[in-house]
């Protein structure tokens, strides 16, 4: 038991040590605290992985967390096959990124702080995936949001960084609003928040309705949709995707770890974890699938025209997360988790490699000021190519297997599935195009930056390149645990491993259909690359011409469909104005304070009139008294 509790606890201890003593004592040796902790977690996670490999589940209640009446929730850990995979993803990516950060953050004055936050993040993420009930998961869920806030705003003296952190936290809160209500509704329905208890009863509540705010709605659907709200926020799906691109204000290792490999996949993890609930509700499943599919396309189109290297990858992340939800929505839970797992490797790789570029160019992120870097940074270039081949889904790189599995499962899922498959395939085409565009703009052609920058161009140090190379191996080979039966019998190791938790996907197709899907997706992957090559290497003026020919479209995409502006004018500004002018200015200051101050004022006016009676002369007081006494006497006398 202690072994499993230690998995999240080690990073927490490292966090406490670093945050308390980092500033004055540890300073630039913070990684000596952080890295042993995460390596310890990694080793324990590997051990836990083998403990559950046989199909058993570890479920521990550490202590009673909140007890109030019949509401009883414990702080407990559960490790099943899904958690085991997540543990590996988190700790492996975490370890590599910790090592990478040693080089990347070297010399930063917040060095100790950076590692402290990273440790806290790993702790939170581990709690999120290891919780054995919804409230512990919610704990981790919010805590990763907190760490994300700290790390996005790490360079807090930049206004944009502070804004982005704040935005991330608040947008996530909108999602958590739904998640929290979902958790409450789950307890009211099932009488427990334990995963085992809830999922065990899921079937018996299918089809029941509940009166929610006056509408008669399907109970399980409502719960699923509320939970999905949380997933939409955390995993940056439409319409709450706006925070993720801004989150790129954080240091690059953070973007890699949190905003690509681990935290943003928490939504996918959560939906996968709740699969027994979701499969009871076709409406919720379709919602998940459609939101995922639309987000995949939506984000990919924006990525086509962005010039900031990290933003391109950020939109690509949003798009890939859309893929994962698409998979979950068509019932291919293991395919979604498989993509989550491969994505962690190649997206972390892409981010870290772009970090290497940014590092070499002294914090230049605009691709228009790059170009021709391949001769200066051969290793970075090589791993970037590997990452791109993986994300675009070229055989036999990792992305190929997972992406293909998703498209194939979508293809099998009825009419709606065909439509989703089409969305996914188009998104694959766009992905290929913008990924190669990024490579060509960054590494090919001539260097377009300042001569000062050119003078300093160099390959990054080993502490940066070694993690890149390890991740590159992952980006190539991570997919080989999920080879479809088409290529190899019993090749889908990960699907079988996850089957106790996520079940087997339904639907069967012919080999011919499967070849068709594989063929199309490979074709569009290559096609996107060729188009990008033509536009950005061969005839570099085409891109500009197209942009000016379709100016409104370009502007729309370049400005991210104006979603931020929409929220600003419809939500933020009205709230700000209303709070200042209407609520504070009118209701509070005018009406309530008017009454409150008005009553004393009226009394004041009255008493100023009344006080003139007070002459200050004894005689008149005495006379008044006497007359008064006489009146009373007279009244009593004549009354009889």
């Amino acid at each position, binding site marked *: 038991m202690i072994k499993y509790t230690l998995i999240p606890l080690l990073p927490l201890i490292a966090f406490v040590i670093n945050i308390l003593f980092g500033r004055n004592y540890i300073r630039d040796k913070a990684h000596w605290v952080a890295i042993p902790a995460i390596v310890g977690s990694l080793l324990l996670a590997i051990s836990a992985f083998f403990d559950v490999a046989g199909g058993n589940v570890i479920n521990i209640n550490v202590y009673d967390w909140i007890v109030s009446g019949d509401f009883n929730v414990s702080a407990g850990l559960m490790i099943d096959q899904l958690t085991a995979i997540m543990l590996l993803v988190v700790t492996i990516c975490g370890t590599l990124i910790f090592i990478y950060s040693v080089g990347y953050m070297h010399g930063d004055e917040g060095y100790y702080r950076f590692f402290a936050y990273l440790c806290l993040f790993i702790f939170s993420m581990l709690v999120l995936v290891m919780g054995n009930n919804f409230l512990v998961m919610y704990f981790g869920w919010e805590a990763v949001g907190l760490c994300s806030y700290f790390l996005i705003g790490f360079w807090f003296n930049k206004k944009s960084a502070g804004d982005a952190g704040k935005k991330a936290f608040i947008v996530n809160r909108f999602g958590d609003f739904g998640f929290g209500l979902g958790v409450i509704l789950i307890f009211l329905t099932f009488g427990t928040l334990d995963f085992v208890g809830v999922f065990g009863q899921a079937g018996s509540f299918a089809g029941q309705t509940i009166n929610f705010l006056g509408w008669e709605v399907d109970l399980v659907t409502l719960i699923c949709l509320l939970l999905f709200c949380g997933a939409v926020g955390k995993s940056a799906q439409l319409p709450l995707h706006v925070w993720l691109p801004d989150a790129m204000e954080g240091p690059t290792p953070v973007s890699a770890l949190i905003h690509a490999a681990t935290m943003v996949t928490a939504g996918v993890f959560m939906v996968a974890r709740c699969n027994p609930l979701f499969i009871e509700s076709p409406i919720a499943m379709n919602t998940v699938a459609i939101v995922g599919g639309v987000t995949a396309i939506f984000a990919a189109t924006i990525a086509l025209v962005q010039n900031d290297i990290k933003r391109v990858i950020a939109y690509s992340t949003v798009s890939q997360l859309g893929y994962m939800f698409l998979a979950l929505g068509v019932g291919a839970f293991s395919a979604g988790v498989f993509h989550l797992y491969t994505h962690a490797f190649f997206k972390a790789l892409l981010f870290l490699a772009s970090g290497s570029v940014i590092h070499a160019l002294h914090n230049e992120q605009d691709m228009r000021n790059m170009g021709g870097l391949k001769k200066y940074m051969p290793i970075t270039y090589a791993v970037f190519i590997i990452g791109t081949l993986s994300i675009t889904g070229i055989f036999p790189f990792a992305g190929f297997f997972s992406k293909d599995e998703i498209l194939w499962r979508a293809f099998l899922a009825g009419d709606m599935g065909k439509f989703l498959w089409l969305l996914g395939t188009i998104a694959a085409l766009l992905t290929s195009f913008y990924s190669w565009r990024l490579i060509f703009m960054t590494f090919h052609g001539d260097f377009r930056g300042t001569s000062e920058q050119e003078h300093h161009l160099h390959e990054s140090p080993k502490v940066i390149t070694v993690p890149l190379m390890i991740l590159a191996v992952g980006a190539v080979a991570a997919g080989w645990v999920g080879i479809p039966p088409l290529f190899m019998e019993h090749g889908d190791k990960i699907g079988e491993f996850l089957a106790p938790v996520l079940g087997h996907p339904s639907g069967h197709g012919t080999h011919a259909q499967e070849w068709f899907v594989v063929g199309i997706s490979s074709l569009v992957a290559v096609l996107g690359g060729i188009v990008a090559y033509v536009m950005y290497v061969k005839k570099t003026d085409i891109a500009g011409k197209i942009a000016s020919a379709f100016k409104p479209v370009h502007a729309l995409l370049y400005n991210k469909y104006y979603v931020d502006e929409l929220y600003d004018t419809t939500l933020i500004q009205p709230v700000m104005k209303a709070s200042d002018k209407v609520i504070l200015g009118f209701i509070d200051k005018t009406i309530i304070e008017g009454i409150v101050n008005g009553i004393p004022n009226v009394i004041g006016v009255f008493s100023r009139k009344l*006080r003139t009676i007070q*002459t200050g*002369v004894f005689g008149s007081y005495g006379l008044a008294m006497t007359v008064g006494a006489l009146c009373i006497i007279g009244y009593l006398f004549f009354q009889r």
Partner: protein
Amino acid sequence: MVPLSWYIILSAVLFCIGVFGFLARRNMIVMFISIELMLNAVNISLVAFSHYLQQVTGQILVFFVITVAAAEAAIGLAILIAYYKNNPTVKADDASLMKG
């Protein structure tokens, strides 16, 4: 045996003198004495009724009144002296600090 009505008349006369003195005179000392006069007028009637009704309550009340009168005189004169130190006058009309 002096009939009760004589005491009542004496009391009423003394009281009226007191009231007149309080209202008509401007010397604060005299006003004080007038107040004492009124109190004592009441005392006379209380004692008279007490004797007439053969009840001791009235006489007890007189002791209360005398005590209060003594306290009042003490405090009142003290105030007066303090006042006189600031304003060397005993004319009541000059003391109009309490004018609203």
